[in-house]
């Protein structure tokens, strides 16, 4: 019992410290901290709609978090989630626009498949180069994030530009839109897909032989070959699955939330997802929890801005402090600095 109390004490204390720092700043901004924090929490969890919004904000993060976690499990640090998400989102939008007229039952799966496919193809470029030429995959992913943003912006501004003044595609067909649970929230069927994915991945990772083999792959390549796996190929396959999930994140944003592809729409969804994967130590349930935590900060933050005089910037300052503090407490896995390995090896 005492152990549990002690284990819980540290995170609680750090969160309290963060809140205290924030309180000083909030007072400085001429608001009552109690009111501001009240709205933050109330906005995130206090009302039905607040909860829906929190979950809506969490949805893309669940996807990106899972994508990052899954790849990390097999020892491929997929820092390219952000780029894959862009490609997936654009693909979903393009299909949603140009294949309009099909019934929803056909169109939605088609859009999602396109998103996953394109995202996988994009990820397979570095994946394959790494497999064949042993070029450091991390470096390629990193560059390809910027490339994806530029490339999709070009496409959304050129060949696929929609009838809108911004760099964006046209609106996807109504039939391609994911079902929404309430008119008061962006929360859509994508969340159910995310939850299902969490459940499936949890099951696969914890219970099945496939999960067992994935872990082997990530822990020790030679060992995994020794126990009968084609390590290189298998890792490539899992990376493909990870990229599919990144693509799903993009599809959800387009089909569920925005209705079309906007250039540069992702506000670091990929990187935040990676952080979530790391915080959760690659556990799918942990990903769900931390995604909701980030979603709550986000949706509660919006309401806090609307309901008080606290500037939105301050909320972000608090959010970043919280991320740091919480991660300092939760990251308990064995630590080794991740070496930026030289290309090749």
């Amino acid at each position, binding site marked *: 019992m005492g152990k549990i109390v002690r284990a819980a004490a540290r995170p609680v204390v750090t969160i309290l410290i963060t809140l205290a720092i924030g309180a000083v700043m909030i007072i400085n901004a001429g608001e009552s901290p109690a009111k501001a924090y009240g709205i933050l929490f109330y906005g995130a969890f206090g009302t039905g709609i607040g909860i829906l919004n929190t979950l809506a904000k969490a949805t893309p993060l669940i996807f990106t978090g899972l994508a990052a976690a899954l790849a990390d499990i097999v020892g491929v640090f997929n820092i390219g989630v952000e780029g894959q998400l862009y490609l997936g989102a654009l693909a979903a939008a393009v299909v949603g626009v140009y294949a309009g007229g099909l019934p929803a039952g056909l169109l939605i799966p088609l859009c999602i498949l396109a998103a996953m496919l394109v995202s996988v193809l994009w990820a397979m470029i570095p994946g394959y180069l790494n497999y064949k030429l042993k070029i450091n995959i991390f470096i390629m992913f990193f560059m390809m994030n910027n490339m994806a943003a530029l490339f999709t912006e070009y496409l959304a501004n050129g060949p696929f530009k929609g009838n809108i003044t911004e760099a964006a595609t046209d609106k996807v067909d109504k039939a391609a839109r994911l079902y929404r649970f309430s008119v008061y929230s962006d929360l859509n069927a994508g969340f159910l897909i995310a939850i299902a994915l969490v459940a499936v991945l949890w099951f696969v990772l914890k*219970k*099945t032989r496939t999960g067992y083999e994935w872990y082997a792959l990530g822990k020790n390549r030679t060992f995994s070959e020794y126990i009968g796996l084609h390590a290189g190929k298998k890792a490539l396959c899992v990376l493909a699955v990870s990229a599919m999930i990144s693509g799903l994140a993009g599809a959800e944003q387009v089909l569920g939330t925005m209705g079309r592809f906007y250039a540069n729409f992702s506000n670091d969804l990929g990187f935040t997802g990676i952080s979530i994967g790391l915080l959760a130590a690659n556990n799918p349930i942990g990903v769900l929890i931390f995604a909701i935590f980030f979603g709550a900060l986000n949706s509660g933050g919006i309401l806090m801005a609307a309901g008080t005089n606290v500037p939105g910037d301050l909320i972000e300052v608090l959010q970043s402090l919280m991320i740091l503090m919480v991660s300092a407490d939760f990251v308990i896995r064995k630590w080794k600095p991740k070496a930026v390995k030289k290309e090749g090896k």
Partner: protein
Amino acid sequence: MSLALEMQHITKIYGEVRANDDVSIQAAAGEVLCIIGENGAGKSTLMNVLYGMTRPDGGTIRIGGKEVSFRSSRDAMRHRIGMVFQHFMLVKELSCQENIIIGMEPAKHFVIDRKAAKTKIEALMDQYGMRVALEKPAGELSVGEQQKLEIIKVLYRGADIIILDEPTAVLTPQETAELFVNIRQLAAAGKTVIMITHKLDEVMQVADRIVVMRMGKVVGETKPADTDVHGLSVAMVGAEIPPMRERKETRKEKALEVCGVTCRNEDGIAVLDCLSMVVNKGEILGIAGISGNGQPELARVVTGLLKPQEGKVLLMGEDITAHDRKKRIQDGISFIPEDRNSTGACLDWSIEDNCIAGYQDRFTGRLDVIDREKARTFTESMIQAFRIKTPDGRLPISSLSGGNCQKVIVARETAFQPELVVAAEPTRGVDIGAISAIHNHMIELRNEGTAVLLISSSLDEIFELSDRIAVMFEGKLTALLDPKQVTREEIGLYMSGAKREEELQWEKS
């Protein structure tokens, strides 16, 4: 003789394990002290304490009569203690010279004076008769050379007390012999050498004094002149080592055939050169050879981890060349790899997960779900059968001592009635108790009709276990010998390539 080192009442407790329990040792200048003991007896812990890597929970250390306390290895170094770790501490990409000087660089205004460094190291190398190519990256040296590099590194730091943790575990007999010459030279120069090893004949060769540890305590101290290998082993294990199992007569029937296998590495050099061989059922074929002659590649080709460019592999008459590793596991080829820490086991995993590794299919039920109940029962039975020292199969395998970890691998690889067991260095770094258990188990397998391909750098092991001995030289098998009729010296000639048979008579028996 003056005492260079005294460790008194050292105690170190890890959780519930008393790794060192009131341990006292001492050593004089110019003395070679060997510490022996079972796996997990606390030898490495004691040395880590001495080198400032771990802080003891109690006890004192005196260097040259003065009491000291170390907060880091830097402190230990300052008191002229140097350590060569079992797993070398080298930066593979840096040159040997840089590896030697790091942390104690001769420098003018922080700019490294390479000339001065070189002069100093050259002088040292001359003095102790050890040479390495200073400009080469450390990673390109052979294991023996790397060890020399480590010793030079220690000497460069001016160490008077030099600790060697299992220095011979990965050395060839030649390299070992060379090392011992170096050790004697160091002792002659007034250095204190403390060496940990599991090889008792080596202890008899090189030690001035021997300390025996068991369960974290010193249980005996002796001199080579006052004892023999048997006496040492009894002192170590605390009981008689059980005798070797009887060999039964078995039917000679081909199990494994390797036909003209050629295998080139990335640089295009043929590491296996049109190699052919046969292993019969109920036979242990020992492969002797100096390391670097293609033994690991042979094991990998047979077990399906390496695709040969030419040649065929047959098992029970069936061509399995195209079978990948997974298929070969199903075919009944099991493999005890030479490197248990990086190949044979996943150190982050539990004993249970390691117990089913490679055979996970057998524990998989509907929906691809692993049957944990079955796995647990299996693990328990393995732990019992092999007397693996652990309170619980769900603990990480890294909590086991090296010998027990090796037992887990042997247990797993022999559990499912394999047709063929490829055992590479099955007892490296393992204490004699465990060695005897593993050896006996292999004989038992043989008696049951399993074919065993044994690859070992220890001639003792080869002689003790093999029904026939093949010698490997430059990717080929150059001799097929009967252990009862051949001497070590003769095998040595084959191993060094000075002698070779024209054609091997695999069918003779």
